[in-house]
């Protein structure tokens, strides 16, 4: 990890000031500053720094601490030994039930007497919730030893009710705060009632050698002056500062929160709290700032409309940002000029879709597509059976019921307003679109099957744009060019510009066999070469035309021939 960061800094030539702890941040009003104020930072040496734009990527490093009687005996995850030998033969109690708690347990599992884990909530398995912040299978060896061998164990309970007392031998006993409050103060340790005194099969009656706290972390709010209004989030997001979907602080303009600390945007939903996710959201913030302060619009590529299906297929198969930051980052396709051309914007934060024009410097006047990846709604979640029969959808026509991560394309005739964004249905990442398409989930996460993936997508796009997006060989375009006043886009943008697709003779034959291309050359042969008698007779008819021309009025003589 450290090496990765070093490489990163070296390649980009970042000027990093190491060994500097910012201890205070405050605002200084100044109309010359980009956002009307400067940020003034002071470090431990009282040196101050001034900037117009502040990117906070301090992570969540303040450990969560629970205060209860005896919590002084508890060791913290951040300081506890990582050497398993230090735990040999010991009985260990771990407070907490996240990945760090299980990681700690996993590390010492083989050498301890046994390990117990206590936490308020039930264990959440990431393969059931599709959230990497929940317990990953690589850490959950303890579940095996608990469920299969009845050695180690999990318990649910509120840590606030807990109390720990140390006996003379240095062993730690679990008791309840309730008993402690009623104790006889003069009696010392022996005077404390232990639960097993009343309930002799109390679960955690065995004394522990060590208690380790693995209760997670929170953002360090302490260094910000009140004027910055850095507020903790509500509910289970209280460990993160409140930010907008644009990663800008709700309290102060020009202050952006990046990295793990920005996870409030997609907490328990996507991967924004983890490096494989926030490296994409960070890039998105960079692009937003480029546009806001340097007039560099969001990077985009302009393609002819014939490339629409292909560009979507290419992106949903290759884009890591869409894939990792599913339902948070989206590709945006802006239609231009009567839908003959479109503009492709990659990995835009979907939460600020309404502000697209101001945030990217691009125009969305003629409708847009939003490409996101989604899991099936209600498929994954705490305690859900994610292995039930027929969990996977195979038919393209049932694609909307796909449960595994799959591309979803929203079509809007115009940009949704902020109000619509606020009122979007609870389970939807976006407001109700004018049309929606799901590309059916794929076992190989490879969405390139011509009939199951590409064809339904093309039909969707065609119907949104009210055009025909099929490919045609040059010969078909030739026919259209001479027999219709308008050409389909593929011919218009290819053949008519002298870039037609000639196709090999072999492919032409296949198309004829499929009934998708008429073979006019067949008419050149004489009738007997054709197995189909009806076609043969038509040929005959044609031949008649070529050989003998009989004007209608002179045809009378033919009657005798009949």
């Amino acid at each position, binding site marked *: 990890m450290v090496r990765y960061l070093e490489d990163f800094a070296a390649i980009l030539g970042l000027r990093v000031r190491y060994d500097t702890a910012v201890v205070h941040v405050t605002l200084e009003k100044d109309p010359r500053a980009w956002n009307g104020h400067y940020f003034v930072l002071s470090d431990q040496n009282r040196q101050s720094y001034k900037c117009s734009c502040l990117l906070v990527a301090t992570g969540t490093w303040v450990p969560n601490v629970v205060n209860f009687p005896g919590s002084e005996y508890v060791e913290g995850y951040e300081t506890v030994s990582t050497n398993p030998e230090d735990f040999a033969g010991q009985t260990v109690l771990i407070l907490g039930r996240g990945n760090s708690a299980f990681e700690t347990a996993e590390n010492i599992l083989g050498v301890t007497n046994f390990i117990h884990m206590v936490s308020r909530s039930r264990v959440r398995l990431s393969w059931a919730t599709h959230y990497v912040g929940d317990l990953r299978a690589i850490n959950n060896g303890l579940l095996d030893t608990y469920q299969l061998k009845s050695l180690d164990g999990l318990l649910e309970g509120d840590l606030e009710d807990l109390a720990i007392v140390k006996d003379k031998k240095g062993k730690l006993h679990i008791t309840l705060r309730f008993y402690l409050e009623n104790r006889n103060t003069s009696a010392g340790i022996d005077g404390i009632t232990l639960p097993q005194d009343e309930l002799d099969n109390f679960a955690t009656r065995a004394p522990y050698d060590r208690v380790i706290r693995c209760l997670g972390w929170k953002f360090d709010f302490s260094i910000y002056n009140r004027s910055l209004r850095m507020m903790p989030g509500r509910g289970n997001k209280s460990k993160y500062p409140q930010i907008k979907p644009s990663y800008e602080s709700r309290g102060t303009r020009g202050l952006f929160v990046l990295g793990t600390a920005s996870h409030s945007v997609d907490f328990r939903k996507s991967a924004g709290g983890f490096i494989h996710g926030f490296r994409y959201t960070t890039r998105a913030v960079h692009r937003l700032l480029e546009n806001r302060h340097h007039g560099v619009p969001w990077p985009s590529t302009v393609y002819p409309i014939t490339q629409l299906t292909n560009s979507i297929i290419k992106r949903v198969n290759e884009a890591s940002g869409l894939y990792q930051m599913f339902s948070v980052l989206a590709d945006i396709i802006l239609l231009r000029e009567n839908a003959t051309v479109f503009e492709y914007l990659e990995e835009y934060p979907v939460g600020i879709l309404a502000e697209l024009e101001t945030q990217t410097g691009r125009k969305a006047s003629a409708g847009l597509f939003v490409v996101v990846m989604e899991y099936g709604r209600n498929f994954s979640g705490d305690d859900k059976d994610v292995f039930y029969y027929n969990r996977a959808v195979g038919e393209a026509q049932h694609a909307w019921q796909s449960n595994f991560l799959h591309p979803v394309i929203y079509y809007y005739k115009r940009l949704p307003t902020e109000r619509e964004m606020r009122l979007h249905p609870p389970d939807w990442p976006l407001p109700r679109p004018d049309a929606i398409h799901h590309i059916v989930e794929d076992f190989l996460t490879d969405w390139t099957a011509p009939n199951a993936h590409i064809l339904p997508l093309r039909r969707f796009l065609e119907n949104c744009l009210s055009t025909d997006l099929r490919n045609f*060989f040059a010969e078909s375009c030739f026919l259209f060019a001479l027999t219709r006043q308008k050409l389909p886009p593929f011919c218009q943008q290819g053949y008519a510009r002298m870039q037609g697709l000639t196709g090999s003779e072999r492919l032409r034959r*296949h198309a004829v066999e499929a009934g998708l*291309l*008429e073979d006019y050359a067949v008419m050149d042969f004489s009738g007997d070469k054709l197995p189909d008698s009806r076609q043969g007779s038509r040929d005959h008819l044609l031949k008649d035309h070529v050989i003998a021309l009989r004007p209608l009025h002179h045809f009378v003589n033919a009657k005798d021939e009949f």
Partner: protein
Amino acid sequence: MSAQEDRWVSSFSFLLFCAVSIPMLGCASLLQELSPHEYFSGLQASKASLAYFSHTVSAGAQPFLEQIENSVEALHDYGISVVKVKCPKEDVSRYCGKENALRKAYLFRGNVLIREFPTDALFDVNSIVANVLFALLFNEVKYVETLTDLQNIENALKGKSNMVFAYVPATGTAEHRAVMEVAFVYGTVHQFVLTTEATLLKDTGSKEPDVSSAQLLFCHCQQVTDLAQPCKRTPLEQDLTVLNIHRHLKLMGAPLVTEVAEDPEEVSTVHLQLGLPLVFILSQKETYEADWRTAEFLAWKLLGKAGVAILSRDRVNLNILRRTNVALKTPDEGVPIKYLLLEDTEEVITLVEDKSKVKQIQENEDEDEEDEDEKENDNQDMQDDQVVEAVSRDKKRELPLDQVLTLTEETFHSAMLEAAQTVVLFYASWEAVSLAVLQSYTEVADHLKGTQGILLSRVNCWDWPGVCTMENVTQFPTIKIYKKGEQPITYNGMLGTEELTSFIVLSQVSCPLKLATMDEAERYLRGELPSELSSYHHSLVLGVFSTATSKVREAFTEAGSILSGHVTTGMYFEDDVLALSHKYAVSPPALLLARSSSQRVEGIALSKENAQDIVQMIRYELLDLFPEITVQNLPHYLQLRKPFLILFSDGDIGRTESKEMLKLARGRSQQAFVSCWLNLKNTPVGRGVLKAYFATIPSLPALVWVNLHAGGQVFKFPSEQSITEINILSWLEKLKAGLEIPSSTLSEEDWKPPLPAYNFLQMMEAAAPEFTLHASSHQEDRQERQQLEGSEEKATVRGELTEEVGVKAEKAQGPGRDLRGTAPRLAGREKQARRHSEL
């Protein structure tokens, strides 16, 4: 006779009515149950009855009895009563006594026994009705087994009455029944002849008779006066059903040609009433007799398909263009009559036949539409993209790629250094157009095999997206040519073997070429220089500059590099440039052009000073005056955005025509339109173009004026006029003056989606926003939530829904279906066999 016929017809219509309405009435009461005495005493003379006798129902006879009961209603329509005679136990009379007799049915007329039927001849309603009527209509329907019998009957009828000849593969079939039912009505009007011998069919004129299906021919014997002359026959081309036969006979009975003396809009004949088109021959006094014969001839040809009427223009004051000679009225209401100018009766016939074909298809579609809902979905997932489908049909074949180097991210850069010129095809292995181009690319590689200094390679961007992004490949396929030390050139021409090959070959030379001596310049113009290209036919341009024109020279240099690969450019600006320019009668700056198609060198003054303008000018100048239009070169001429004057020809055009057309093209009007010709042998799709213009292929060569970019009208040069410059010019004058009517107008329609998409939005909303397959475990939650919402209506809907989901989920628990998710669509593969037959 005709009064009687009318009566028959009306009774027939009544029958038809009955046949339609009876199944609803369920006349079970029509089956009488009588004792033998009651039965035999009640028989009325001339009234037919079908009787069967039974003691108690024996098990074996049961199905037969059921069938007989079912046919009671059908027979009742023909005045035949069906009687079940209950034999008393002790009865040993003729019919009740013998055990054998109980397995038969008896047909009586009055009290005369006409026939007895074994039960196995009466296996279903069709066979019962067919056989009973067959027995009753012994005289009206003659059964023949040999050709002589048939001919005897035919000869006997000549000059007297017509004959209806039917072939059925077996008696007792539905077709047999249909023939008999019609014979019941028409039996006194026409002589019916029936056979089951396929050999008789062979002689009736149809070359390859399909002996497995029944056929019916109407033989026009009444008007035959000469015994040696055979009767004309008109086959019924539809299935043998009562309705179709009835319709056919009605049509045969209608007058051959109707004389009309009123507005065609008002005319109505049997044909129109029966849903067939009516063709009007527009005649005048002078040609009336001849036209009548034409009409008669046509009527025979169209018998059973359309009616023919003859209209004398002199008698009706019609505002119809004098030039039209045929009108077509379709039975569909609201469709205006089409007035046409046709040259040949065959054209009329194809017109009618195509129309009826189209109509039939439409009818079929209409029928299908009722059970279309499900099929609609089937169609949606059927591939209708010709390129995708063609490529996927070819996917099992391994392409011969040994001449093409496969590059990866690692080998890409080193490979660029190997040959003087490396061609790279960037493609995606999932993308159809890329794969189609890859096929042509292997052909290019084949052509260029062994050419020094050219390396053909490919990069699959699906495997190596990195290198494709690095090389700025944003769409597939992209073809680039890399030369050492130069910016790569992106190919932007036709994606075909020939065009790409020629581009690669011509790109070997860096253009424009600087020529140092007069001799070099001359050799260059003869195509001998540069030597690499001497064996390729190609167009060349030589820029001739005096030393003073450096600015133009720079622009020309830029233009030359833009045109590189398409046109070879060279420049000459030595001191003796005037000698060269004198030779070609130009003064510098000027261009000397040598087209690939001719040896002549043309000189043009160069007035433009901008590279793009020069490119445009060279492109324009290289276009032929009177080109043969092909799939490959049409776009060049389309870009001029002018009307087209196309001479369609089957094979090469005649010398005189070619000369006249060339004269025309050279003439003053050449700026206004593109004159070209199309060889149907080289460009068969031209037939498709002609069909779109005229519905049929007109006589060739055909000269056609197409307003491609303005209005889309198509005009055909009168074929009786010879193709000369003067004729064409005067015709064009008439076109301009609006004196000609267009043969057709090109569709202005936009290209709409060929089929609808899946409406997932609707499906999702119908299933409530939070709906998923796995909702069953959350039923309780949801119901609670619903109560909170307080919307009862919603609650019931969702309640039902969750129930449904429950059922689904239960089903889903069943074992053995677990592969569905991992190997999806395998089951659905069969569908792939069905394809759209049209674009």
